[in-house]
């Protein structure tokens, strides 16, 4: 299945759930409403034609205006690639966990929770792990984050 065929399939079968975006420069990039996340994930996993069984990556992004969470999926059996993302406003930074569908999401979600402060529903293992145990300086990957001992690179 090429990228265009995949796009067609998604437009046909996932109308309203997955909205293809133009920003994906190589693989197909779609947008999902945060409320639909677990439903879409389950559908993508169960769809016989797609069968996205392999979660490559989850990346949290702070664009300066909103949060985005980007999921990269691939299918081992059908050899496909797909990215989709959730857009979250700062005051409603909550997503559902997809740990039940892809176990690999466990630590990736934990990391987003820890570094961005995005809350994860239904995740039983939300513990600090990358930052020191006594860390109290907030969420360092946010764009507006600052701390007294944080040295910025001077503009040349």
């Amino acid at each position, binding site marked *: 299945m090429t990228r265009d065929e995949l796009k067609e399939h998604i437009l046909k079968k996932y109308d309203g759930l997955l909205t293809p975006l133009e920003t994906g420069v190589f693989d197909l990039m779609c947008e999902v409403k945060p409320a639909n996340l677990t439903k879409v994930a389950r559908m993508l996993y169960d769809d016989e034609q797609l069968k996205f069984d392999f979660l490559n990556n989850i990346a949290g992004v702070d664009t300066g205006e909103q949060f985005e969470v980007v999921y990269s999926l691939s299918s081992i059996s059908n050899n496909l690639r797909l990215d989709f993302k959730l857009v979250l406003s700062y005051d409603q930074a909550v997503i559902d966990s997809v740990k039940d569908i892809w176990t690999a999401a466990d630590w990736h979600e934990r990391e987003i929770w820890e570094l961005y402060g995005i809350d994860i529903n239904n995740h039983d293992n939300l513990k600090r792990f990358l930052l020191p145990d006594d860390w109290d300086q907030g969420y*360092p990957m946010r764009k507006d984050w600052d701390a007294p001992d*944080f040295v910025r690179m001077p503009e040349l």
Partner: protein
Amino acid sequence: MGLIKKVPVYAEHVPGGGFVATQLESVLSHAQACSMWYLLFATACCAIELMCTGASRYDFDRLGMIFRPTPRQADLIIAAGTITKKMAPRLRRLYDQMAEPRYVIAMGGCTIRGGPFYYDSYAVEKGIDHIVPVDIYIPGCPPRPESLLEGCLHLQKKVKAQKLADWHEK
């Protein structure tokens, strides 16, 4: 401190003891310098170069340096690689667990001043010299095995030049 170290101190009060003491001093310092056992402590990139230095081509063992896994039996920490804020208390603890006399080599830019992670990093300790006292700094990212060997030779020189008075301070 081992009992043997007291010997030169008392020997000074005996006539002719000064000569014995200086001879003993040089022998003991020489022994320390020639058998520097290093702790197997490695965090990041420099660890690979540390491994290579211990391996066939460069061979730490020529200088009498072998690794010990436990800090109790080591004389030297080669802090190879970035020390993060989370790791810093552990480094201090390992240093505290070592038996006197103990030495520290800061290997690589990260341990000296944070290296490439000095700017814009919220997690890296900017230099290990405010965690543990450092004897030798080896710059590089990572330093070549030759630089590490040179650093160790410098440390040996430093240890060999130790005086009686230093022992009580250390």
